[in-house]
């Protein structure tokens, strides 16, 4: 029998996921920054609850994020996960999908990400040598640019930080660097170019570049082979006349040596990665590009977002990692999971439907399935907002993933796919525990794609649906929220291939 024809649809060939353990950047997160401004003692109480690198690496949700544990293995581990779990098995900072990087090496990448003259990021000459050696010896991240060795003395750094002109970069409480505002004449009066705002952009760029470097490594392709980059993080970069203007995609591609790529940024709050993957797939399907990298860096503003609750309860600050991901979208390669882009196969929340939750979920869940002649029973796993419940529950917001699964199961009942009494068993079958750090766009369904690609390639799953939500109302310009969904399916070429002898 002849094999099925190659799909006109694109595929997601591989994915990468990285974390940066950055305890001494948590103070620059939005919530800690605002609390410290009200009460200077907050910073000391915050510092007392920060955990070390080994604890962050051993933390089971982080191991799940980088691919060393499956969501099913995580769900089987007793909680609390933060107190050191018996039976979690060996853990590593290196993962199947990427890695967890300590902040000293990250500072060297942050320095590499800074292209301004005079420099925004300064590192002390003594500290930078060691950081740079670690970066240059890194098997994957050494590609992130040539070393910049124009460092400054510790005394000069101290003077600059003490005057309040720059933010301190510390390692175990020792000052090793600083981040400045744009103090050139054209930047001096611009609040969008202050040190903390620029640090947000630099963190987004540096972490996205990490994820892209890992993506290229995992895909086994040269940076020059990428012909388009889409950035889908939430950070708004730009100055007073164009805050949010974009440019992160090309900045990240430049840092990784993607010299043949063009690029653009896509904004849609937490749903931007899903929107970006659909857009990338459509561009590939249209024949405009062959290999598109979809990347997103981490959110400095969201570090320590729930820290007040953690300090009150005397448990470690779990929001201490910047997170990043990257995906490679290509034409059908006969092996990788297919991204369904047939007419109406992508779920969207239309402006008109947003007057009813039921209508939104019908748009997101049922219409794409109907377009492909499928029902909710044909999806093996649904991946909605996959926030780590340990972070959300301690802060009083409950298990966000489970709340989303309740809505999905309710729609399955309304659609006649299951009986009401089957809801819990349905959730058990198609759901999973959340494991992603609360970094906005990072947990929004796409955190599961790395695991999904493996399940779809191995035959453990046939179809997976990714669902993302976006709180558009946070822009204060509309009351709407958005939803975006798409279906990944095991490659028909792979599923029809006879087993190897």
């Amino acid at each position, binding site marked *: 029998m002849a094999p099925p024809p190659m799909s006109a649809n694109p595929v997601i060939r591989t994915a990468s996921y990285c974390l940066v353990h950055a305890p001494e950047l948590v103070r620059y997160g939005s919530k800690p920054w605002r609390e410290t401004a009200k009460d200077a003692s907050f910073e000391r109480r915050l510092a007392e609850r920060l955990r070390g690198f080994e604890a962050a690496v051993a933390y089971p949700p982080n191991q799940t994020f980088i691919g060393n544990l499956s969501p099913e293995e995580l769900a089987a581990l007793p909680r609390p996960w933060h107190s050191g779990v018996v039976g979690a098995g060996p853990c590593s900072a290196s993962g199947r999908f990427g890695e967890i990087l300590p902040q000293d090496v990250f500072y060297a990448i942050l320095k590499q990400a800074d292209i301004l003259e005079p420099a925004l990021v300064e590192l002390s000459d003594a500290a930078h040598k060691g950081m740079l050696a670690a970066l240059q010896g890194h098997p994957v991240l050494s590609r992130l640019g040539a070393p910049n060795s124009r460092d400054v003395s510790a005394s000069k750094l101290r003077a600059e930080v003490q005057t309040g002109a720059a933010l301190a970069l510390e390692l175990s409480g020792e000052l090793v660097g600083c981040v400045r505002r744009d103090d050139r004449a054209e930047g001096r009066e611009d609040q969008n170019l202050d040190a903390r705002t620029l640090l947000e952009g630099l963190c987004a760029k540096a972490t996205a570049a990490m994820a892209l470097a890992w993506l290229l490594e995992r895909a086994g392709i040269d940076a020059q082979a990428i012909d388009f980059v889409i950035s889908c993080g939430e950070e708004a970069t730009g100055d007073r006349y164009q805050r949010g203007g974009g440019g992160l995609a090309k900045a990240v591609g430049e840092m990784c040596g993607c010299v043949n790529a063009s690029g653009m940024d896509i904004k849609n709050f937490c749903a931007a990665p899903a929107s970006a993957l659909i857009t990338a797939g459509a561009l590939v399907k249209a024949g405009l590009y062959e290999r598109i990298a979809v990347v997103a860096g981490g959110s400095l503003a969201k570090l320590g977002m729930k820290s007040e609750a953690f300090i009150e309860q005397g448990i470690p600050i779990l929001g201490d990692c910047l997170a990043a991901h990257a995906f490679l979208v290509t034409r059908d390669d006969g092996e990788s999971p297919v991204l369904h882009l047939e007419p109406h196969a992508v779920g969207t929340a239309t402006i008109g439907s947003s*007057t009813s*939750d039921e209508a939104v979920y019908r748009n997101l869940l049922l219409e794409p399935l109907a377009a492909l002649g499928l029902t909710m029973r044909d999806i093996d796993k649904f991946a909605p907002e996959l926030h780590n419940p340990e972070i*959300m529950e301690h802060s009083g*917001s409950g298990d*966000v993933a489970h709340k*989303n699964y309740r809505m999905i199961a309710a729609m399955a009942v309304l659609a006649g796919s299951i009986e009401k009494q089957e809801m819990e068993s349905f959730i058990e079958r198609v759901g999973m525990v959340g494991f992603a750090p609360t970094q906005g766009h990072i947990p929004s369904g796409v955190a599961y794609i790395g695991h999904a690609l493996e399940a779809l390639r191995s035959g453990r799953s046939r179809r997976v649906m990714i669902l993302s939500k976006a*709180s558009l*109302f946070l822009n204060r310009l509309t*009351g709407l929220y958005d939803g975006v969904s798409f279906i990944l399916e095991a490659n028909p070429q792979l599923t029809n291939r006879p087993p190897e002898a």
Partner: protein
Amino acid sequence: MLKGKKVAVFGERDDVTGLAIRHCVEAAGAEVVYETTSCFV
């Protein structure tokens, strides 16, 4: 129970939204004087 009452509605994007609560309480005869939906992530 809610007939003729004034109600302030606080919903959550990842749970029951303000809009869904509004529909329920209005059906029960209440007047919604404030409605918001928050995002906690």
